[in-house]
Each structure stands twice: as C-alpha cells, then as structure tokens.
C-alpha cells in the first residue's frame, strides 16, 4: 500500500496530523516531518530520508503532501525522488488529507492517489458570504402535502 508522509515549514504538518486523529480517530500510518526553524536544508533532507527508509513497503512508493511549492520541505522531497518512489503534492489541506487517508485502498497507486488528491471534491474548498442576520430560504416540506 502507498505510504503517506506530510511535510511543512514548522508544526503545520504535525497539527494536521493531530487534527486528523481528532476527526477520524486514527493517523493511518501517516508520518509528519516538520522543518524546524533554523534547520538547514541538508539536515532536513537527511531527517526526511530516514523517515522514508523506516517504512517496510518501499515498492508501492510514497505520497508526500507539502505546504507550499518550492520551499525547503518541497525541494527536499523532490530531491529524494532520486532514491525513493515519490509523488509530491503542494498546497495540502485538511479535506485533502482526510479524503486521502480515509479513501486509500490497497489497489491505489501513486498515480491514482495524485489524481484523487487534486480533484475538486478532495481539495474541498467551499465559500459563502453571509449577510448579517441573513436567513436561509429553503423550501419547507409540511407533513400534510395537500395543505
């Protein structure tokens, strides 16, 4: 089964993981690897490589979610694709992590998971502007349909 690792500048990834546990009750073997303030890219890359090496199933590869494209965590993961089978996604968020961790199956491959991750449903951003005191105008059904 594809392994999942989440990475970020500072504690964001650890926070996401603990929120995942709060919502779903499990962390599904996902590991969070934060870049701590002041840490050099070399030492972070080593730390990340060590975490990846710790997984028993190397063959299925790693889906790595990162906070922003181009930063040190992202670059380190991209570099490690030299030695590991990696798919890398930036702009991770809670709905994405939640749908991926809950929806991942034995049959999923790196390709299928990446497709899933960036689908509109998975990214899960919705918006509505609420006017102050605004009421919803939903059609109400009554018990007696003829009234």
């Amino acid at each position, binding site marked *: 089964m594809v392994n999942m690792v989440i990475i970020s500048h500072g504690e964001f990834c650890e926070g996401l993981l603990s929120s995942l546990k709060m919502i779903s009750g499990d962390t599904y073997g996902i590991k969070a690897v934060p870049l701590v303030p*002041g840490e050099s890219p070399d030492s972070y890359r080593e730390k990340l490589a060590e975490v990846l090496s710790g997984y028993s199933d190397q063959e299925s590869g790693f889906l790595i979610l990162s906070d922003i494209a181009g930063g040190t965590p992202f*670059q380190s993961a991209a570099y490690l694709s030299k030695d590991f089978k990696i798919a890398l996604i930036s702009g991770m968020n809670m709905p994405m992590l939640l749908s991926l961790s809950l929806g991942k199956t034995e049959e999923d491959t790196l390709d299928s998971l990446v497709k899933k991750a960036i689908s509109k449903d998975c990214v899960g951003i919705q918006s509505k502007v609420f006017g102050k005191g605004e009421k919803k105008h939903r059609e109400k059904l009554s018990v007696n349909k003829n009234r």
Partner: protein
Amino acid sequence: MKNLVLTRIDDRLIHGQVMTSWIKNKGANQVVIVDDGTANDQYMIEVLEMAIPEEIAIGIFTKEEGVAFFSQELDEPTILLVKGPDVLNYLVDNGIAIEEVDVGGMGTRKDRSVLYKNISTSAEENKQFKSLLDKKVNVFIQVMPQDKPIGIDKYL
C-alpha cells in the same frame, strides 16, 4: 559591479516565495548560483529549476566558472546566490567587484551557533565574514526585502 542587483548568502539557495519576492524587489531577471556541490549535482539542479519562476534565467556554476562568468559585464539585472561567505572571498580575491552582501539564510548545523536570530555561523564562517569586511565589502543581515538591514560587524 554593474547589474549585480543582489549578492545573497542563503544555504537554501532558491527558496520558493522568499526568492520570488527578492526577484520582484530587485527587478532581477537572472539568478546565478555559485556552489561547487550544486554545480556538480544534476539532480539538485533540476529541483532548483522547479523552484524558480519560469521567466527567470538561471546559471549554476562552480567557483572557477563563477569567476569566468562575473569577469564579463552583466547584460541583465542579476542576483548572485551562494551558500556561504567563503565563495564570496574567492570571487573577490579573483577580481570580482562585490560591494555588498546580504546574509539571508544560514541554518543551524552541528558546527554552527546562533549569530543573530535565525542566522547561525561556524567559527570558520565568522572568520570568512571578517575577511570580507576587511576587503571593504558591506555585509548585512536581511532575510526579506521588507526587513531592515542589520550590519553583521557587531555580531562577529
């Protein structure tokens, strides 16, 4: 030298949005990295190319190639990026006119201790900085364009 709009030490080299904001701030359209390790690591070069806006030209050179490159006039506004002060001493010693150096990122490492906020240096790197100051190069710490530059001399 003309068109050298920023000389910066950052051990993260090209670093996503930080670098993008410097490029905008300085109006640069090319970035030159002088670092032997990176210049000899084709895989790292590809990763760095992913991290920089596409309209920016990029050159990744060894120290010797760096001297050759900056010995010619710069046609375009250029940012020079290095990982540490030693390379800059090498360039200056080889006749490249660098008037000022921005220290933007030097992370913690076993041989480094904190110099100022999140800038860490080793004893050897401090010596290299002093040597730059001796050559009348203005060295200051400034992580982002909106930060106030802080002279490094009083922290060495």
